[in-house]
């Protein structure tokens, strides 16, 4: 029985760690789906693990599909930031794609609103 218990622990242990195997979006600023009163000057995305700057990107577009971010994405650890142009009231879509340091790719999108 000791062997079996050890075996169970071993394998739960070895692969329990893989729950964090991909970099998922932990939270964003402006928040996902939020309506903000003042137009934000930058977008900040925080992921569940460190990401590779060379292969991670984010784009913010307005309801007409025009890109409103300033393009220069900064990545530090699990944090990704991009400066935004002057945003008028309306809906904005954030589309991101990141590669985690353990090489997995995740992507996603969400919307935030700037109140009139």
């Amino acid at each position: 029985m000791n062997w079996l218990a050890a075996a169970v622990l071993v394998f739960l242990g070895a692969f329990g760690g893989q729950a964090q195997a991909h970099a998922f979006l932990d939270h964003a600023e402006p928040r996902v789906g939020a309506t903000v009163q003042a137009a934000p000057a930058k977008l900040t995305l925080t992921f569940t693990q460190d990401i590779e700057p060379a292969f991670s990107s984010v784009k913010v577009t307005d309801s007409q599909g025009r890109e409103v971010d300033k393009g220069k994405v900064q990545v530090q650890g699990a944090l990704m930031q991009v400066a935004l142009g002057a945003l008028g009231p309306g809906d904005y879509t954030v589309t991101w794609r990141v590669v985690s340091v353990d090489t997995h790719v995740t992507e996603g999108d969400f919307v935030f609103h700037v109140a009139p």
Partner: protein
Amino acid sequence: MDLIVAVRTIHIGASVIAAGAFAFGFLVWPREPQADEVREAMSRWLRRSAGWSASIALLTWIVWLALIAATMAAASPNLEVLKTVLARTNFGHVWMLRFALGLLVLIELRTRRSATASAAPHAFGTVAALLFLMSLAWAGHAVGSQGALRALHLTVDALHLLGAGLWLGALLPLCFVLQRARAAATSPWLTAASAATTNFSSLGVIAVLTIAASGVVNTSLQVDTLAALVQTQYGQLVSAKIALLALIVALAGYNRLRLVPKLQAGGADAERDSVAGLYRNALLELVLGAAIIAIVGLLGNMAPASHLHEEGMQHMSH
């Protein structure tokens, strides 16, 4: 099946076999002088096994790089992409280090063609082959751990791989010795098989303890994910793995408690019977071990679905 899964599985298997071939020569093969014919046959077999497995490991490592580069860039991997991956990503840095270690292993095999299966000449190669296997941890999920736990997680994974290399990897050459002893039934091969089995048995205990200890530490780091492991497809694969390992440990326990003492006690009939039994069990353990490695290759690509956040729409494309 995903190509990356197949490549990862073959790579892990080949790395384990290469490390095992060296570890066997260094730790399992008896120190006592063996008959020339036996020593030479074993030495030749170990060199060939290490050479083939290390070559396959290096080739699959190159394919792995190409596949990862394609995934990262979401495009076919041209030279520019490869350069960026190698120079600017964690995987790229680990890739270069492991490639160098793999080359060292092959160079060692080339330059020591005349080496015997005795311990001393293989120390350098053994270290390189074991580091090659252990450094695989830096290409895996542990590297994604956050904060202070990262170093611990990496160390634990590296030890886990070391345990697998020592145990599963050295099992293949042991099968060769047992098969020879069974087929030849001449006393030099039986003597060698008996001594090697005894050494392997001790090594096996250390390897299993290493695997268990690294697993326990890892579990204590990750308890919050246990529920997800039970409920998902991922969890079911892990359960299959646990069952496979339990079978291997049961077989190993039977070998150690029943067959090895019988072999050591001597007597021609008892020796023949126990060698035949050990050979059969070792083959079975190898098959189960290969299945475990295949599951490891598969799990490497997955993340439990329960981990998906509420933060907008997001998905994994790899």
